[in-house]
């Protein structure tokens, strides 16, 4: 497989997992992910979409052409909306279009999927990916679909089945993404040989990573403690001032992976010169930074 195709397929896999995670919350047990493929040409990405279809798209806003388009049959959209509202069947299965509340529900599901897919893409690329506001369209003819979206050099096609109806995510991928992904994959090839498996090093309790994500570099940082003070006090700190942190000297320190509190451990010195963290406790993987309320930590932009 070419490096480009491999990069595109990984991008598709991580987006597929992100989207199905969101869909699964809205329609539990009614979602399955199908094939991730790299179509030969742009038009092929949209070929054979069953109509009438509801399409929702978001564009990237960082100066590159590209984005995500999610397509689902009208019946699928109605069923998804019904599932989201806790109903077994759509209120009016034969209506020629979506009701206002159905449209709002499906838009919201797609909105959250797109945000989640963009976050996964950002992780794969190692840079932030911002998306614009979503745009919803209805298509009565499959031939009209490809022409409605900006042409990009690459595309990935991901199949889904939602409430028994076919759906598809098409990622419109600019060249810049492929270049960044390919170089990230190259770096990884070099690192995997020399570095021990981080999951094993952490005591083996973390479980195997999802294969398509296993190779993606993540940012790991350790936190000694925090302090809260008025901004005026911060700007007035002279050299030599002491800022007290919220931890005792014998408290464990926190290890973050991409902003999620992952483990706690002890600060140690290795080779008599370098700081390191000895992991004491790997946190339950369901406990993310979002669950614990205020625990948001970001990688400083300047690093």
């Amino acid at each position, binding site marked *: 497989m070419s490096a480009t195709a491999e990069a595109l397929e990984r991008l598709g896999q991580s987006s597929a997992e*992100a989207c199905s995670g*969101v869909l699964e*919350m*809205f329609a539990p047990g009614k979602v399955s992910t199908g094939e991730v493929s790299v179509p030969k040409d742009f038009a092929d990405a949209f070929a054979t979409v069953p109509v009438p279809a509801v399409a929702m798209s978001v564009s990237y806003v960082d100066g590159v052409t590209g984005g995500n388009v999610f397509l689902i049959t009208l019946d699928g959209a109605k069923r998804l*909306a019904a599932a*989201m*509202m806790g109903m077994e069947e759509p209120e009016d299965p034969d209506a020629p279009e979506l009701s*206002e*509340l159905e449209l*709002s*529900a499906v*838009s*919201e599901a797609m*909105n*959250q999927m797109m*945000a*989640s897919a*963009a*976050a996964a893409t*950002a992780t794969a690329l190692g840079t932030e*990916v911002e*998306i614009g*506001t979503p745009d919803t369209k209805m298509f009565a003819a499959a031939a009209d679909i490809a022409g409605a979206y900006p042409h990009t050099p690459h595309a990935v096609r991901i199949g889904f089945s939602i409430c028994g109806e076919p759906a598809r995510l098409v990622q419109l991928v600019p060249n810049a993404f492929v270049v960044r992904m390919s170089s990230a994959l190259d770096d990884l090839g070099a690192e995997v040989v020399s570095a021990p498996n981080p999951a094993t090093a952490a005591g083996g309790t973390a479980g195997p990573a999802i294969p398509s994500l296993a190779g993606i570099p993540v940012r790991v940082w350790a936190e000694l403690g925090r302090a809260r003070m008025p901004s005026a006090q911060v700007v007035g700190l002279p050299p030599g001032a002491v800022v007290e942190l919220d931890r005792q000297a014998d408290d464990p320190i926190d290890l973050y992976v991409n*902003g999620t509190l992952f483990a706690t451990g002890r600060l140690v010195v290795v080779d008599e010169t370098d700081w390191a963290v000895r992991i004491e406790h790997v946190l339950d993987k369901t406990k993310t930074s*979002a*669950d614990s*309320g*205020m625990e*948001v930590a*970001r990688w400083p932009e300047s690093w």
Partner: protein
Amino acid sequence: MARILVVDDAAFMRKMVTDALTKGGHEVVGEAGNGQEAIARFQELKPELTTLDITMPEKDGLAALKEIIELDPNARVIMCSALGQESKVLESIKLGARDFVVKPFQADRVLEAVGKALA
């Protein structure tokens, strides 16, 4: 049990949040579909707590939060955001939001955040 204002541009999300809060014994006293409306409703209804979506047309949740906190520095506001908006979440906490929930969310998570903010 509190009087709550629910703000989200998606009618479906307002319904989800309202249903969750009502089941938890709270009273949803009003809804708003953008930041501008949110500020007007806030002044008019004086809710004990406001849930605020971040991405909205007209005026977004961060701008609305700023104005609400200016109107009432003790206002209890909980932000609702989609994934990948960590920087905005952090900014809203700095601006004075009490907590946030990440979409998609379960009803329990909303109630838990509301309970904590009211405590």
